[in-house]
């Protein structure tokens, strides 16, 4: 069994996204566990800057050779920055899910939504359970 990387300094959603909070900004991507489960990512529907997202609702898709997976917004807000490089190099989601594989930055509209996210230990328990 491969041990999945779950950095301690990030927050996580039960939909297997990671969230890095900086004031009112949330940088997000999919976790090591998620990329491993998907297999080789061949396409990322990079969100559009300025689009409003609602917590729990799908706003993007990641597709591998075997399946398509919705990306659910872990927090509500407006997309203010996107990783355009994923358009030509979606494999970065596999090779560096917490770095070059980041998806977008959301300007949060309700920072209290952070409270519902999981700490690293809780997410590790979720994926190992």
């Amino acid at each position: 069994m491969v041990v999945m990387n779950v950095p301690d300094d990030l927050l996580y959603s039960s939909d297997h996204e990671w969230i890095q909070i900086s004031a009112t900004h949330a940088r997000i991507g999919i976790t090591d566990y998620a990329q491993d489960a998907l297999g080789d990512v061949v396409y990322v529907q990079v969100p559009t800057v300025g689009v409003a997202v609602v917590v729990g609702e799908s706003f993007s898709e990641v597709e591998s050779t075997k399946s398509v997976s919705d990306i659910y917004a872990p927090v509500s807000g407006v997309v203010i920055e996107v990783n355009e490089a994923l358009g030509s190099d979606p494999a970065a989601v596999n090779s560096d899910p917490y770095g070059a594989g980041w998806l977008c930055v959301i300007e949060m509209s309700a920072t209290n939504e952070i409270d519902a996210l999981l700490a690293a230990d809780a997410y590790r328990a979720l994926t190992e359970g």
Partner: protein
Amino acid sequence: MDDLQYSPLDAAHRALGAKMVPFGGWDMPLSYPSGTIDEHMACRTAAVAFDVSHLGTVRVGGSDAFERLQWAFTNDLGKIGSGRAQYTHLLDESDGSVLDDIIIWWVDDDTFDVMPNASNTDRVRNAIGGQETTHSRAIIAVQGPQARARLMTVFAEASAVKRFHVVHAVWDDVPCIVAGTGYTGEDGVEISIPADMAPRLWAKLLEADITPAGLGARDTLRLEAALPLHGHELGAGITPLQAGLGWVVAWTKGDFRGRAALEVQQAQGVSRRLRGIVTEGRRPPREGCAVLVDDQVVGALTSGNFSPILGHGIALAFLPTEMVDGTPVVIDIRGSALGGTVVATPFVAKQK
């Protein structure tokens, strides 16, 4: 759930860290840690080994074996002979649709190994009789432009088996059957080896720099080569004529199962035919997506994916016969439109 069947190479796959998936009632490798794309590219540029032990083997023997198979299947064994392999179809007598697509290895004068798709093995055995020998052997497919060169160092006799030839060969005192067949659009051979000896041969192949590849790569490779997959491009309601596989039907050989139904369709002509579609960009078109021309649905995709070699989407669909190559189409992917073009197949040309 644990009525899954396991390959003789199961432990080897797990030791390599393969992701296993149920397929046709078998637990088989989807991919190894290097991933589907790397495995795909290794097959197009070098050499890979697939465990295809999940394919069925039904051994049919006896002096009437030839006649039984001539009646059961569409192709004409009279065009080949002992020591050759042939692709053929088992039809539904009522409507001529393809119950299974099969490779026959003509092993000896009166002995044939009939190889159905995993989930159709019982159906085929019911149609032709014979003895199922699936569990006594493993089958390893070695494929790719370097397949023969790398296999030469491990199993020279197997590396010399020509395309669609079938040969008895001995590896390390173990009797094997080797055929120059495959499902990737590349050169290569398939080796049937007694189950208990298979892990040793598998290990030697990997030592010879042959990359293990899983069902994920097998599917993207066969799609680039536009080879049909039963349950997608072949199956209930689909005849060989619609699938563009009229060459599999030997009209000159006399009667065969499903012939009458197929003759009716042959006379009327087919209204839909299997076609290739290339799509714009990396987004994979998927099975089930609707195909539209001028906002009218004209068909649905039977298979679709990202082509690692071409760098864009490719798909197969049954489309109206009158549609010419070059026709622009729109693929509806869960409500968003993806542009595409009808093209001739294969998407990736066969290696010589």
